[in-house]
């Protein structure tokens, strides 16, 4: 019985690792944030699930197993929230470049009204799609004209 569980663990963890690999390749290959998010959230969550599943038989019941599962749940919750937030920020900007993901770097955002308030940022013109997909985010030309500073306090 022990051997079977070990084999199951090895197989499950290998599968999990494979999905992580897929997720990473997706992160590097896909051209814009939305598709990258898609790859990451899908592949990595599944990968994590498989790895946790694979490790379950190794842990002794009941405390460690419950801990492992709760850790998995927290990871899922955190991953989903962050993914949704980034996707919302990307779509809200109507454009797909990494600059829109960042909060406007004006000094202070007036939080007078609880609703989220966009401070003076024109969306990018239609030039996003000419950005070659091979282009890594970090080297994106940072034309600060698109992002003009918020009202100085």
């Amino acid at each position: 019985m022990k051997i079977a569980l070990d084999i199951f663990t090895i197989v499950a963890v290998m599968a999990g690792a494979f999905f992580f690999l897929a997720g990473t390749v997706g992160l590097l290959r896909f051209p814009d944030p939305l598709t990258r998010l898609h790859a990451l959230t899908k592949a990595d969550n599944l990968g994590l699930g498989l790895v946790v599943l694979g490790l379950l038989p190794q842990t002794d019941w009941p405390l460690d197993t419950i801990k492992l599962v709760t850790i998995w749940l927290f990871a899922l919750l955190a991953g989903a929230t962050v993914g949704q937030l980034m996707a919302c920020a990307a779509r809200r900007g109507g454009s797909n470049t990494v600059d829109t993901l960042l909060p406007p770097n004006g000094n202070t955002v007036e939080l007078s009204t609880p609703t989220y308030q966009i401070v003076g940022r024109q969306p990018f013109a239609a030039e996003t799609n000419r950005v070659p997909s091979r282009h890594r985010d970090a080297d994106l030309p940072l034309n600060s004209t698109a992002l003009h500073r918020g009202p100085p306090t």
Partner: protein
Amino acid sequence: MTLALAVDIGLTLLILAMAAWTIAVRDTFASVIGFVTYGLLLTLVWVRLAAPDVALTEAAMGGGLTGALLIGAAARLRSTESASRTERPSVLTRTLAAVLSAAVTAALAICVLNLPDPAPTLAPAAAAQLGSTGVGNPVTAVLLAYRAMDTLLEAIVVLLALVGVWSLAHDRAWGGYPQLRSHADPDGILAYFARVMAPVGIIVGIYIFWIGADFPGGKFQGATILAAMWLLVIGAGLAHLPPVSQTWLRVLLVAGPLVFIVIGFAGLVTAEAVFAYPNGYAKPLILAIEIALMPTLVLALALLVAGAPQRMPPQ
């Protein structure tokens, strides 16, 4: 070439690669992200070095709070990115820096390679007197019994850093509250996440604080998690940071060290030395000190991340 060594070598190479990338990449924000990843990888190394307490601290403090601090700062400083990049030092400076850093590294490597073989250690001494401290976890025993003064000073360091951060407020904003950058939609996903995670985080934080007496854990790790939860709730826009001039805030901030000093001097009466615990009462006293230190650390760490007061409270 045992499997463990292979894992260690892999981990080391991964960490060195991440550190090199963090230093070498041109964009500050990417460097910050690299640093956060580096912090999490370092947690793995602490686990490999059989130091779970330190792993918890590194994950909470090194990767978590420092990461949050740096990401916030990098976001605000993006506009100065292009200006400061022009001041890249000359090739001569960089080669000299590389040579001298390599020299220091080589010196350290030589020292590491001929550290004495029966490594001198204080583990037996610590273990021998662990009983009188009434605490199971030897690290907590060192922190709160053998070297109690260092922990007291360390709490004072955190408070002093907070006073230093608050001293950077404008005179007109003194007495106001720090303005944490919050962009949350009250009924958005972040608010929901905060409402779900906060209670769970608080339980986990107190749990880690509680088991710290006998198992890896402790007040710094627990306090950091609670501070993180408080920052999450404020980040989600569900609450405001208290104004700086609030009396209860200052009393709580100061309570930890003062209780520590009082109990320390009480030791003079009951156990003939400052910071000594009378026989049998060590555990309760240590717990009392830790309970007093918790609010101080939670508030101080959160306020350190929040920064200097910027906005006056609505009169």
